[in-house]
């Protein structure tokens, strides 16, 4: 990809970026949020067209107008969120779109042979006849990889592939990637996780604010150098914090059970625990073990089946979302679904939780645009939220990281005793993660209670004062981050170890 430039309103997403991928290498793409990694990959995969620059493959200029063109050129992509048909088998998903047929009938046997051969060759063991909904996330990812291999793709793009995996699965994935490279496939690996890049990549290109910073050989660099290249300053990879000084209980959860939308079983089963002021309690677990439903139940988005919630001495089991929000700030898991009205301007989103505050109204009915603008400008400044046009930017056009910062600014600035932060750093770069972790610890040090729900092991280990592990809707372990190890935590998360947890 040579001199790629892609413009969005008010922002140059990619500014003259040149990236060269060699055959058989693992090339990491590193950059802050909004640095333009996703845009660049979307240009390569044909989802966007670049304003300037050209793409060459094997020395020949090519035009990629849509993902089909990309596929024809042997470029495949594993998206962060898998694109699989849940009720189809692995095999059916792999051949979807490129089925071999004879007189209109599927020829699955032939396809199966090819899939088996591929999975042997690259060490990707999956059961081709298992249904997607029955297999683990790691297996689903392998299905995605097999999909690319089945289409004889030579350039494989992995968009943050480790975000959803357990530590064990990550190790396996790393091995698979190395194997693929050895067999002559070229891999573009997008990640924020420096340790993974150090482990698996051959070279690493760094983007910062849409600009190309440089490409380095991994063997000549270290994590500190990489993070400095990415952020443009020194970053502390481990957060400093004083030991917690827990005070009186803020949140008490008793026998909480929440129904599941996906299946008839309850998603959260009889969960009890307490969060005190001045401590960060983390709920760790692999995605889909009831954390989402737990947070919905806690914040009032879903009713409880049974159990009770006490917040600052008040029973909030049946309270409305609005009345809970007087004491509770909620950084939601899905910023697009819950956190933001994407078609509103940034300033309107900044007041989403307090637009009804007399401060932002005149005459009790009309919005006070001036007050809203001033408030929004203050938050933008304080929390360094970057956007094309400041307060009036339409939120949809902002980068994911800055959208997240806007939510965090809004929720932290609002009055609250308990901060519920659900995967607050998902998809963010080290600079932003450092910032958010500091903000969480500052919250704690100011005597607020913080409940962190996270899938990131490092975050869990670094930030929290206490770890509760959730597995299949139950709390299966309480761990002290100072005495436990990542491996032990991983075992609890995978359900291999468990103990009784009481409030």
């Amino acid at each position: 990809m040579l001199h790629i430039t892609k413009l969005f309103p008010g922002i140059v997403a990619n500014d003259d970026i040149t990236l060269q991928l060699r055959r058989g290498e693992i090339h990491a793409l590193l950059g802050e949020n909004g640095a333009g990694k996703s845009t660049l990959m979307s240009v390569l995969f044909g989802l966007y067209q670049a304003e300037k620059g050209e793409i060459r493959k094997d020395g020949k200029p090519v035009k990629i107008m849509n993902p089909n063109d990309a596929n024809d050129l042997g470029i495949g992509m594993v998206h962060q969120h898998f694109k699989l048909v849940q009720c189809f088998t692995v095999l059916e998903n792999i051949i979807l779109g490129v089925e071999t047929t004879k007189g209109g009938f599927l020829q699955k046997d032939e396809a199966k042979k090819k899939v088996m051969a591929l999975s042997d060759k690259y060490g990707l063991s999956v059961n081709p006849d298992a249904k997607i909904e029955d297999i683990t996330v790691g297996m689903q990812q392998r299905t995605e990889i097999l999909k690319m291999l089945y289409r004889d793709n030579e350039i494989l793009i992995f968009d943050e592939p480790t975000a959803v995996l357990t530590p064990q699965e990550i190790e396996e994935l790393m091995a698979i990637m190395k194997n693929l490279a050895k067999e002559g496939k070229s891999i573009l690996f997008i990640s924020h996780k420096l340790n993974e890049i150090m482990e698996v990549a051959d070279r690493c290109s760094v983007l910062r604010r849409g600009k190309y910073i440089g490409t380095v050989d991994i063997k000549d660099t270290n994590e500190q150098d990489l993070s400095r290249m990415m952020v443009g300053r020194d970053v502390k990879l481990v957060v400093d914090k004083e030991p917690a000084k827990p005070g009186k209980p803020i949140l008490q959860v008793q026998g909480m059970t929440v129904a599941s939308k996906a299946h008839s079983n309850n998603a959260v089963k009889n969960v009890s625990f307490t969060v005190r002021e001045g401590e960060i309690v983390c709920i760790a677990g692999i995605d889909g073990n009831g954390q989402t439903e737990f947070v919905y139940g806690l914040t009032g988005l879903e009713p409880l089946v049974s159990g009770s919630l006490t917040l600052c001495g008040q029973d909030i089991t049946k309270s409305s979302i609005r009345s809970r929000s007087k004491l509770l700030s909620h950084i939601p898991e899905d910023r697009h679904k819950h956190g933001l009205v994407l078609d509103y301007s940034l300033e309107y989103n900044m007041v989403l939780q307090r637009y009804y505050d007399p401060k932002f109204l005149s005459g009790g009915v009309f919005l006070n645009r001036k007050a809203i603008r001033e408030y929004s400008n203050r938050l933008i400044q304080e929390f360094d939220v970057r956007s094309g046009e400041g307060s009036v930017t339409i939120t949809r056009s902002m980068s994911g990281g800055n959208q997240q910062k806007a939510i965090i600014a809004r929720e932290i600035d609002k009055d609250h005793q308990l901060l519920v932060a659900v995967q607050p750093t998902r998809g963010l770069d080290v600079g932003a993660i450092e910032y958010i972790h500091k903000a969480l610890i500052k919250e704690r040090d100011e005597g607020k209670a913080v409940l962190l729900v996270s899938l990131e092991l490092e975050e869990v280990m670094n930030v929290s004062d206490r770890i509760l592990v959730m597995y299949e809707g139950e709390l299966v372990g309480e761990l002290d981050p100072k005495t436990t190890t990542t491996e032990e935590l991983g075992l609890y998360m995978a359900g291999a170890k468990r103990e009784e947890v009481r409030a």
Partner: protein
Amino acid sequence: MRERKSFIELPFVQSILAALLCILLGLLIGFLVLLAINPAGAGEGIMAIVKNFLTYPSVPAQLKYLGNTLVKASPLLMCALSINFCYKTGLFNIGCAGQYVVGAGACLYAALAFKMPWIVCLLLAVVVGGLWGCAVGLLKAYANVNEVISGIMLNWIGLYLVNMLLSLVKDSASPYTQKVASVNQGAIMPSLGLSNLFSNNKYVTIAVPLAILIAILIWVVLNKTKFGYEVQATGFNKEAARYAGMNEKRNIILTLVIGGALAGAGAAFLYLTGYEEWSVTQSSVPAMGFNGIAATFLGALNPIGTIFSSFFIQHITSGGAYLDKSVYPSQIADLITSIIIYLCGFVLFFKLALNKSISKRKEKKS
């Protein structure tokens, strides 16, 4: 890095351009249809539709018939506002037609049977229209019944109920209701001298400026108030609105009540001028509510834009009456106007196409 937007990139300029494009294309297709049926009169025919009241040579006559167009444009504007307002909450108020019908029933019955003054009749139309909207809202909020389904069903229920009710105040010799002006002059909305402006067109009443005022009011409510903030947030992202603790159920019901009230008032704005009577034998829901959909989209979902689009749609609808009936069958006027109205629904599509061509041209330049 901030880029100054050129004139053509301003959203409202684009909306207007797209609307004009739709209108032109609609007229073109209309013209082609006329050509296909009878080439001889096609040019004249399409001109008649476009000219409407301008067909008349004398200025007083033009003014008089402009008045007629305005009289019918006001209820259309109210229906368009009803749909516009609900659409901002993410609700498609196709039940607007039925809310309009029950509004008509309420105000006519009050005027003819109880000899009520116009203000009471108008308020009744508002209340009954609002209740009709409320029914849709309750079903949507508490039983998650799609508002389009319940709206369409309530349209028919409303129509036949109103036909039954107004049969009681029917003229003995015709299927129409008695003339409001002759039975109860007090139920006719006051003109306050407005009719003098339109060559003594007695149908021009305060309904016309009132409808425009309400359009401005709706714009203010949507864009400047807390309620408007909630309504639009719900429309853009229901889940985020819920997350922010907005009372979704209340807002759905309230929006549909307001939508219904607007449509009900629209009916009063027509029938309380004495311009038309209600035919108790009609077996189809009046098109007013449905034309409101076209007016809303042609007006780019903006209450202010809707003022102009409603007038335009009424203008060509009335213009259809001037088609030469000896050359074209009488239905052709409706056909042509419906084609144009149909094309009006494509405003968003044209806006998209416009944006694409602009960005392409920019790309070439750079």
